[in-house]
């Protein structure tokens, strides 16, 4: 198969980017999208088709759809045309011979470009650091079977926990909102008895951090769910909203009570 690629090139965070056009030929339909970029880079490096030689920078690692490192905006869609698939698991058989394919980085204020197709997603780590965990320390915990958890709850928690933190939800959202990402983590713990203890504090802290870091507000258009490579449901956002509201009401109640005694 032959393709024309329009790829975003940007020297660094401060430089102005632009599209450049490349051609790749004789690509096997079984080749993955990232392997196709490998082939292009191989040509840039060994055939020196343009000087100075500067292979395309893109993030990737496990290439089996689980590390969340790959982050390509392909033909206007995060991770490309195939539903529920990361760019590394997308294969060229999903395109038509002769297609022109546009490849861009994630575009969001909170994810600045580092080089070409690489972006800085450390904002996600910062949100998790605000409370995307249960504050248990190592050791001194009860037997794993001490607290039975209904299978339905455990399964729903697992559905939410399947998030790979790639940022496709942010890239898909016209407001660049991180609601689905935050909701997935909040939901996982809200559904488990171990996570309930800190549930109120967690949801408030994570939402506040998300807002602070420049992610937009939820558009309610569900673009995030549609583009999520792990099919994380927007029902998690509904759960987050309930948790957030509950936490706020409780917080207000407590303030009032404290005031009453003071």
């Amino acid at each position, binding site marked *: 198969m032959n393709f024309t690629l329009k790829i975003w090139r940007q020297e*660094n965070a401060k430089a102005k980017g632009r599209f450049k056009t490349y051609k790749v030929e004789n690509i*096997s339909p*079984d*080749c*993955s999208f*990232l*392997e196709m970029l*490998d082939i292009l880079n*191989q040509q840039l*490096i*060994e055939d020196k088709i343009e000087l100075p*030689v*500067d*292979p395309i*920078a893109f993030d*990737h*690692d*496990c*290439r*089996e*759809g*689980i*590390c969340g*490192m790959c982050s390509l905006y392909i033909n206007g869609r995060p991770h490309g045309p195939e539903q529920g*698939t990361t760019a590394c*698991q997308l294969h060229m*058989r999903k395109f038509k011979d002769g297609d022109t394919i546009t490849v861009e980085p994630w575009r969001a204020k909170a994810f600045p470009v*580092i*080089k070409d197709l*690489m972006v800085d*997603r*450390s904002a996600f*780590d910062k949100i*998790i*650091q*605000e409370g*995307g*965990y*249960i504050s248990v*320390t*190592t*050791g001194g*915990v009860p037997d*794993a*079977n001490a*607290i*039975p958890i*209904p*299978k339905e709850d*455990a*399964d729903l*928690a*697992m559905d939410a*926990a*399947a998030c790979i933190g790639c940022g496709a939800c942010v890239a898909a959202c016209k407001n660049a909102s991180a609601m689905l990402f935050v909701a997935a983590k909040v939901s*996982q*713990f809200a559904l*488990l008895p*171990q*996570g309930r203890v800190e549930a109120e504090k967690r949801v408030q802290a994570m939402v506040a951090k998300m807002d602070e870091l420049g992610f937009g507000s939820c558009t309610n258009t569900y673009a995030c769910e549609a583009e999520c490579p792990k099919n994380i449901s927007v029902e998690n956002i509904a759960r987050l909203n309930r948790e957030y509201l509950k936490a706020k009401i409780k917080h207000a109640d407590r303030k009032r009570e404290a005031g009453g005694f003071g």
Partner: protein
Amino acid sequence: MTKLNSKIPEGPLHQKWTHYKANQKLVSPANKRKLEVIVVGTGLAGASAAASFGEMGFNVKVFCIQDSPRRAHSIAAQGGINAAKNYPNDGDSIWRLFYDTIKGGDYRAREANVYRLAEVSSNIIDQCVAQGVPFARDYAGYLDNRSFGGAQVSRTFYARGQTGQQLLLGAYGALSKEIKRGSVQMYTRHEMLDLVLVDGRARGIIARNLVTGAIERFAAHAVVLATGGYGNVYFLSTNAMNSNASAAWKAHKRGAFFGNPAFVQIHPTCIPVHGDYQSKLTLMSESLRNDGRIWVPKKKEDAEAIRAGKLKANDISEDDRDYYLERRYPAFGNLVPRDVASRAAKERCDAGFGVGLTGLAVYLDFADAIRRLGKDVIESRYGNLFQMYEKIVDENPYETPMMIYPAVHYTMGGLWVDYELQSTIPGLFVAGEANFSDHGANRLGASALMQGLADGYFVLPYTIQNYLADQITVPKFRTDLPEFDAAAQEARERLEQLLSVQGKYSVDTLHKRLGKIMWDYVGMARDKAGLKFAIEEIRKLRKEFWENVYVPGTLEGVNDELMKASRLADYLELAELIARDALHRNESCGGHFRVEYQTEDGEALRNDEEFKYVAAWEWIGLDAEPVLHKETLDYEFVEIKTRNYKS
């Protein structure tokens, strides 16, 4: 030979760890605040160790090469994690997990370490549940188990086919908690270039900032390497693209002995190679062997017809199928250990019974299980794996059998460590896949996650104190010491040298050539002549690399090719050591199969009299022969036997 002291505590096996903990030195809370620890790598071992050190009160610096600590390759582990909980009441115990691991490793692991691993395995599950890891549960709400190879009990805990992901996110959560608390400083997109020794002790690292390109220095009282294995020496493996051996190799060149480098695990169930553009291989979890049956056609003409595209798997009648694992190993059947299953697949394919276009594939068939349990049950157990298979191969495994073939997956070998997980460099500890410790010559499925978390949560937090207790009067190190200057200078010069070659070939071109040598001659079947040939070829290729590699760009900013070249330069040295170790070990054991040493029915033939030891290699210099040190393995508690999975 006197250099190796494994420091195994006295006493009966089941009291060694208790005894150690009761007698080790501790560091008081006030002194912990004065001490710094560097952890390199944020997989299960690194993240769990760093989080635990932070909780204890040490000042921790953590490094990872990815953009977030959550992306370390532990994330990709699928099937599960073993623990001797005996929740299913099927006869498991600490002893049995210990015994299965020793036996699975073909009697080439250290008893005391393995027993401790089995002992703490239960704590890991408790810890992970407390962290909110959503393990699979039954309808009563209790934890579910499944079976893995090399065991006759169900002791594997799992979270669908994403167990590694969930355990890593648990450890990443713990790490994030400590980063927020300020006890841990996280350095993402940093790659370690060298280890810094001061007065013979590990005191810091040199790392490259992968965004700015700056070569940076970091000092500490102790260094922990949790940087994973070296499977990518083979180019094609199930490892992530950025997984590499450079941190471990640099430590080796600074004096840490390398243990059993030849012990490489080739996993039986991976998606077969399909083209020369392929960048990596994808594992299909061992858990699939719970319900999948492995077979090839009984008749060669059927296999030929399948390869020619004239017949399909489903055209072959039941009577014409050879379920060769069930035939050869009736007691364990499809759940024999990985090394056994891989060799059996290779044997059938080499004999002309392989399927797929290349003939290098066997079937993994779920038709029986789907008939017995229904498609829904199979989907709930393996749905994501089936989906992944379909995406890559473009075939529906619910309808046609999967095609699989062995691929490089895990390295049992690694930096030699003693019972405290300390290398031969004082103050350098090594955890997880990066060390050689617990799996002998073959690792059992679902034991890597167990070992990574055991090392990080429950072993290092104790043993590192025993070392640091003597360091409390040592002030914090400055990075302007001459040792740091020299190491940083050396690291910079090496990168400059790589950039200056300006040859013809990309790093990938040369890496693929190395991979082919390794797979053909240092892979599943090895022999003396082939290994000698491989060593020559590797040396030639190393020369060619330094004369003809082309690395574009400069030292500044993002430069992936530069880092890839730096890693390959290390692989080219490590590859030779792997081949040398394989050549010296005149026996077959576990994943190390020398064709000269096999039984009449093609099973591995160990030589306990001459090779019941850990081979720990000492680096002398680039063109000098490495020095072999032997740690004899004394089996005080287990009776050594020939592994038997037949009856």
